[in-house]
């Protein structure tokens, strides 16, 4: 199966794997543009419990220097982090504002 190519052109069924699968990690497929609400963390109130990191269904929160950082290339704005945050220091703000 061809790999590590930005654009893959299959010719016929013989090129396909038996089941449908991405050719690469989905890290190559940014989905942040689907978002219309953006989580914004108020770091002054953040206690670094990492509950947001644990709950993010898309693994779109990275831990950088012991702090949660939203990866906006992949965050779809579902708001689960804001809902679960025990300190309520994640605010969902409208994109474009």
């Amino acid at each position: 199966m061809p790999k590590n190519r930005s654009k893959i052109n299959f010719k016929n069924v013989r090129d396909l794997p038996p089941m449908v699968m991405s050719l690469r990690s989905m890290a190559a497929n940014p989905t942040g543009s689907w978002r219309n609400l953006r989580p914004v963390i108020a770091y002054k109130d953040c206690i670094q419990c990492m509950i947001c990191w644990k709950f993010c269904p898309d693994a779109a929160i990275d831990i950088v220097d012991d702090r949660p950082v939203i990866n906006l290339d992949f965050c779809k704005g579902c708001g689960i982090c804001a809902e679960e945050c025990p300190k309520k220091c994640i605010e969902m703000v409208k994109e474009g504002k």
Partner: protein
Amino acid sequence: MKKVVMGNHALSHGAQLARVQVIAAYPITPQTQVVELLSEIVANGKLKAEFIKVESEHSAMAACIGAASAGARTFTATSSQGLALMHELLHWSAAARLPIVMANINRAMAPPWSIWTDQNDSLSQRDTGWMQFYCQSNQEVLDTLIMAYKISEKVLIPSMIVLDAFSLSHTYEIVDIPDQELVDRYLPPFDYQYRLNVDDPHTFGGLTTPDWYMEFRYKMHHAVNDALPLIRQEGIEFGKLFGRAYDTVDPYRVNDAEIVLVTSGTAASTARYAVDQLRRKGKKIGNLRMRVFRPFPFADVRRYLKKAKKVIVIDRNISYGYHGIFAQEVKSALYGHSDVPVYAFIAGLGGRDIFPETIGRIVTKVEKSKKPTRDIYWVEVKE
């Protein structure tokens, strides 16, 4: 080692010998003993496997899908309503090309509530992409389970081992339980090329546009079809190692037969007994047992039926508004190849016994008839 075991436990022993790595199951009569014994085998450390207790059959199949995706050899067992609840995930497991093996103990669908055998549960799953093997003895159940892993893992299509409630599941028979060392020689460990791997991540089952969806279906159809010669080849291979060979169909005294019965499951054993009785009366009769339902062995069915003068299909199932499901497939196989009339009989629904005398009466009726006058003949219904 020869042991006297019930059909359900033949499955448990078979799964143990196949060294399954993950078992996920939810109890349902008449299947429960299959996984009950397996849970003991796992708890006693005789089989290194994860036994996952789940909250429904839907979840049992989902757990098998997850485990198989990670490259594990998986097993589950169910019946009737449980199989129906799995339906969505039967499509998923087959199209995701996961070689899961499952036992389904044929139990009639409710209502009316029933725990006894008929085939409408498994045959309702005809178009999910699962292979289906119908067994007639406890020995065949154990052997087919082991063969199914080899076949499924080669073509990446799941297999369903099907056996009749009570008349097989709870019936004790002598079963030769093969040595582990011999089974290991026949069945290598499952090495799954497409397993989930954190070092080489892929997403599975994603959105596919009309440009390519059909090609995946084309591939899947060919994989199921490719299993047919493989089933035959593995049946011979198994015979060489274990002394018991298997084929897609099981013909009995059909060579010079003018009337051929087509049967499946335990009704086939009864039909063979009836054939012997009728042969003693000088009647030229034979039986063709359907062992594999999907992939459907069209060529074999034609080979054994086209010389007959009359074909009788006894279906322990019904496609409402049509007739028996095996009868439908047999007619389809013969269409354009032979003009032999096919008589479609429905018998034994909801576990009603099919006796040798039942089959005798069916044969007498057909002998007197020149051609089928009805699309469907109901056997011993209180009309």
